[in-house]
């Protein structure tokens, strides 16, 4: 009983934190307290106040507005990279499980190849070659989501292929790909929700990492990673400048992990 309640609390906390970030991001699409790009050197490095809740940075920009606009950027990159990973990886996993044999080998060994590279390093390579920017960050992170989704889907699908309902569907004359999309994929929904949440949180970290080294979204677009980077030189003067984006990343990743964990436990009680 206690464990059931604890599970509920973790899940609720995760959903709550994630929900707040999502709401703030949506709000940032239409409104931020100040223009996050507007410089006001006269107001630089102000402490948090009624006017500037999170204070201002070395160029007088409102930190709250930058965090809000940065959320837009971070969540967008993470979400789109999950979408890329899932939309390529899920079909690959389904094909591997449905066809077996050579197709399976080819897909899974290709996966191993991608897995074999340290992901962040290769993402840095990609963005370094094709130029920094949000779009290239999305692609770089998305590529590393592909084998994760392919592997998870293949595993789940193989288990489902042993069920007798696939036998009945084949006797009805349905081909393996049709069965994959009619029977297998819908039954993997919750598995995908869990994996998607986890990849989303990894995407947040990856995006922050890339923009920290200057390969993510380019100025003047605000981003949490670059805020951390810029705050580094000012840690003695204004440690809060590193604190706000750091805590934002921490909270969002924590929330997503709690959410994913809760979803997984719900799936397999």
């Amino acid at each position: 009983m206690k464990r059931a309640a604890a599970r509920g609390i973790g899940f609720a906390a995760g959903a709550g934190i994630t929900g707040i970030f999502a709401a703030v991001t949506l709000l940032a699409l239409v409104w931020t307290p100040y223009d996050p790009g507007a410089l006001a050197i006269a107001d630089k490095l102000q402490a948090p106040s009624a006017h500037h809740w999170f204070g201002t940075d070395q160029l007088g920009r409102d930190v709250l507005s930058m965090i809000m606009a940065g959320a837009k950027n971070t969540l967008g990159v993470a979400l789109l990279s999950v979408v890329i990973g899932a939309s390529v990886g899920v079909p690959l996993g389904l094909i591997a499980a449905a066809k077996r044999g050579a197709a399976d080998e080819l897909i899974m060994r290709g996966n191993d190849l991608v897995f074999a590279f340290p992901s962040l390093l290769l993402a840095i390579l990609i963005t370094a070659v094709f130029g920094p920017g949000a779009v290239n960050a999305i692609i770089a992170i998305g590529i590393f989501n592909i084998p994760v989704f392919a592997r998870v889907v293949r595993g789940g699908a193989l288990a489902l292929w042993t069920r007798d309902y696939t036998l009945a569907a084949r006797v009805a004359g349905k081909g393996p790909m049709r069965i994959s999309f009619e029977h297998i994929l819908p039954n993997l929904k919750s598995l995908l929700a869990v994996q998607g949440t986890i990849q989303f949180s990894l995407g947040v970290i990856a995006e922050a990492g890339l923009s920290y080294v200057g390969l993510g979204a380019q100025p003047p677009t605000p981003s949490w990673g670059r805020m951390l980077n810029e705050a580094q030189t000012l840690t003695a003067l204004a440690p809060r400048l590193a604190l706000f984006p750091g805590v934002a990343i921490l909270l969002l990743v924590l929330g997503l992990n709690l959410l994913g964990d809760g979803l997984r436990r719900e799936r397999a009680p």
Partner: protein
Amino acid sequence: MSAAGGPLLKVDALSVSIGGTRILRQVSLEVSCGEILGLVGASGAGKSLTALGVVRLLPPHAAMTGSVYLRGIDLAAMSEAQLQGVRGRDIGMVFQEPMTALDPLMRIGDQVAETVRLHGSARAAEAEAMARQALDSAGLRGAEGALERYPHELSGGQRQRVAIAMAIVLSPPLLIADEPTTALDAVTQAEVLSLLRGFARARRMAVILVSHDLAVISEVTDRIAVMHGGEIVEQLATADLLKARHPYTRALLAAATLGPKRAAAAPATVGIPVLEARGIVREYPRRRRSFKRRAPPLRAVDEVSLSVHSGETVGLVGESGSGKSSLLRTMLALDRPQAGEVRLLGEAFSSAAGTTLRRLRRSIQVVPQDPFGSFDPLWRVERLIAEPFFSLDAPPGETERRTRIAAALEQVGLAAADAERYPREFSGGQRQRIAIARALITNPAVIAFDEAVSGLDVLVRAQILELLAELAQRQGLAYLFVSHDLNVVRSIADRVYVMYRGRIVEQGPTATVFGSPQHAYTKSLIAATPQFDPTSPRPSVRC
């Protein structure tokens, strides 16, 4: 009653409720030394819970009242710590699933010895000697170094012997066996049952045998307690079973003794068969032995020929691993044979492709084994039943579709309104009816059944078999009935094929094959099948 101070075990008014629902009501029973008590009933009748209640191994949130006296001491009043001393030492237990009852990482000798070590001061060497002896008496002596082996190296029957060895290693006076043979094939089942009977006779152990199978129960027990809806509805000596009075016992009896009535004359087996296999060979590649040497493929089906004529029910019997499932998949054109051909309605089926294959698929349907795994849990019954429409060139329109779904459901004894429900809302027997409705919807010429009634209770099984016989007669359907259960095949099939190690070793009309089997394997299979015969003589021993 026994002379020496009453029964060994006396369960008095045992009631169990889980989460407020009463599952067991006032169950009372007694077992004496050397006696085998059979606990029989449908699944959900409370048999297993009674067995578990004796040693208080109940699920969480279960509340138990009543008394369980072992040699006059009330187990129900004991603390959990005291009970742990009783379990294993005074009461041995064997469960249904031999695959999961053993620790996969422990040598079997160590597993058996563990029971000894947990219950006393026996030293390692001593415990090992006892384990060796227990495994011996459980019939594992033949295998040299049996103690050194791991569970995955053993067959299901051998694992169940290990489980039995663990249960008897401390020579407990009481052995509780919960469906110990349900997961085993007929020959192994017979061996395990005679083992249990041997313990009761030779070691004067009291045995409680839980089973849904009246044939199993009637073969080895001295007394029978019939459970229904959490209550014991009747207790009687096995020899008096035919004189049972309670209607539920009588229904169980009827289901165990009577097969569905077939038309007097079996349909003629002339003309072109509806479904025919000619010299089917099905091989599976094996892992290479080395880089240079390719291992010879595993031949699961070895030149098998088989035919099913219109309106005929053909049984295909064989133990697990005999190749009958591989053969069935080939007959359904799901796998291609390495040699030979499957013909459906006189046309090549195994080599068909494209529109021909689609057209032929309408004429053959399948009812799979597992009533719980054979439906997509996310689909409603309506959509599930209509799935075979996919093979039609012009699927019926919305109204016709609904009428046909309703008709199919009513044909199998369900209501048209059930179409709106999900498979999880139905019982095992009802699900098997849904599977049959799905098979019927394209009006096929032949339906293949893959162990389709193996997972069902006797009563439900009898009902389904009756339904099948009725449908066959009404619609002139042909059945290919694959099963390891001889009693089922005997009751429904006109002709039988016996499959052994990938080959058909015997075939012929059911009465001939069962009446005078020729092949040694068929003979052993028939001898091993529990026969319902409560009047057969059995020695009686008491405390």
